[in-house]
């Protein structure tokens, strides 16, 4: 059983910058908008967009909440300065708190989802102002695990890093000279104090990436992964997550009535005619 997650970063870089340029220009645009969280995924997407479109054509938007870690803002600033790109900081506190206040029983999960969706609203609004498309920042690990807010951080016009596992995101980020503190800090959605991805998921990206690579890319069965030494409960929980969150990876199903239904037998690429 061979687990090889390392990628040729020069090839990845060439393909992903080509993808961003092609898909944005064919849609009739020349610019991009990226929500910069201060984390590695959005830093990488942003750096790729800059390489694809030029630094004056990428708007970085920082959207802190009052409890957001100061490091998040500082790390985003570090990248903005390094890339020399236009940026805006739009705080979401005053937008989300009235909604929080409407229900005394609101949970931190609900608050987190509201914040993620508020950021989507801000980004899409800035997309109109800047005349640029929203570039996604979801990696393959979190898409497979469903570790995202539907219509929140998962919303974008195109996603250059969605076929890279988190460990591959790190590798490519090194190649693009993303500042070391961004690469090295523990990944976090920063929706509440002390939240980390690995704490919440219950396993490290390094271990789950290896397992997902075997299950998804190499088509090994769950049993084969257990036989190869992966913990049985760990494998079962990952398999369950992948299945349970399929809905987050899809357009909502449409009930078929006619002879020709969008999604089933009305089939065209987005690049239709371009």
């Amino acid at each position, binding site marked *: 059983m061979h687990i*090889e997650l*390392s*990628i*040729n970063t*020069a*090839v*990845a870089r*060439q*393909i992903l910058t*080509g*993808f961003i340029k*092609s*898909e944005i220009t*064919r849609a009739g645009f020349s610019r991009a908008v990226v929500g910069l969280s201060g984390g590695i995924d959005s830093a990488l997407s942003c750096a790729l967009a800059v390489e694809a479109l030029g630094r004056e054509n990428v708007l970085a938007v920082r959207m802190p909440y009052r409890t957001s870690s100061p490091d998040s803002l500082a790390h985003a600033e570090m990248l903005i300065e390094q890339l020399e790109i236009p940026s805006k900081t739009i705080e979401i506190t005053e937008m989300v708190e009235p909604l929080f206040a409407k229900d005394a029983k609101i949970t931190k999960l609900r608050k987190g989802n509201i914040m993620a969706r508020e950021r989507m609203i801000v980004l899409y609004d800035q997309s109109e102002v800047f005349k640029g498309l929203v570039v996604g920042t979801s990696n393959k690990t979190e898409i497979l695990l469903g570790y995202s807010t539907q219509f929140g951080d998962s919303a974008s016009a195109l996603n250059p890093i969605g*076929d890279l596992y988190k460990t591959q995101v790190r590798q490519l980020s090194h190649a693009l000279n993303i500042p070391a503190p961004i690469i090295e800090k523990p990944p976090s959605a920063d929706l509440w104090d002390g939240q980390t991805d690995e704490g919440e998921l219950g396993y490290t990206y390094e271990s789950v990436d290896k397992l997902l690579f075997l299950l998804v890319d190499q088509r090994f069965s769950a049993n084969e992964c257990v036989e190869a030494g992966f913990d049985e409960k760990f494998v079962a929980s990952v398999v369950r997550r992948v299945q349970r969150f399929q809905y987050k990876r899809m357009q909502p199903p449409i009930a078929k009535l006619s002879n020709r239904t969008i999604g089933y*037998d*009305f*089939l*065209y*690429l*987005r*690049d*239709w*005619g*371009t």
Partner: protein
Amino acid sequence: MKLNLGLAQIATKLGDVEANLEKHLNYIEQAKAQKADLLVFPELSLTGYVLQDLVASVAHRPTEDDPVFKHLLKASNDLDLVVGFVDEDTRHRFFIASAYLSGGRTVHVHHKVYLPTYGLFDEGRFFAWGDAVRAFDTRFGRVGMLICEDFWHASPPYLLWLDGADVMLFTSASPGRGLNDNEKLESARWVERVSKAYASMFTSFVAHCNRVGFEDGLLFWGGATVNDPNGELLAQGPYFEEALTVCELDLNQLRRTRARLPLLRDERTALVQKEMSRILSAR
């Protein structure tokens, strides 16, 4: 005898035949300026690849009265052409097709015989399966054409070889996939490996022309190649970008290689036929 072969690894506009025809005519002019005798375009070069429900609206017939082919047939008076298109037969079946045009005539049309319908591919859903693998005569000798998945199977190149093809023209719209730490994508390495193997085993010229450009998230990787009857790489186009690769084929190399290595002479076709009959009848 020499053949100056051009391979045009172009990007296409999805479903816009007019725009793609313009690009063909532009590349034909470039190839003429470089004294090419034969210019090969990739699979579905007039239409784009992931056509899905666009298939019927982009279909054409390789005849003089067709608004697209009349221009290409006219151009074929100056140099021979291989173009990729959707062929609609008289009973409205749609095929992935390559046409060989020369001297204002359509010399041969190949319909793709293997339609990949697995993984990211869905061709069998939208296209009819071709049912013939035939070599044909050109002013450069006997030639055979295959389209992408056709040469992922060993039998079509083998049949062309036995049918007399000394120059095999492979065309593709091959999406790049299988990124690992290698400097080449797995899909590129696979195709390069088998192209070289066919040239070596069949002591023939094998040229491959693959398109470039994106369709949604798919990137076609280009990298046109020409291998000689010794299995040696004569020319290679760049990956991922449009290019015209022109390469001189010394067709006399067929004679020199086959004098040294008489694989064609010694091929035991009657044995193949006998065993094939046994194998198929036993099923």
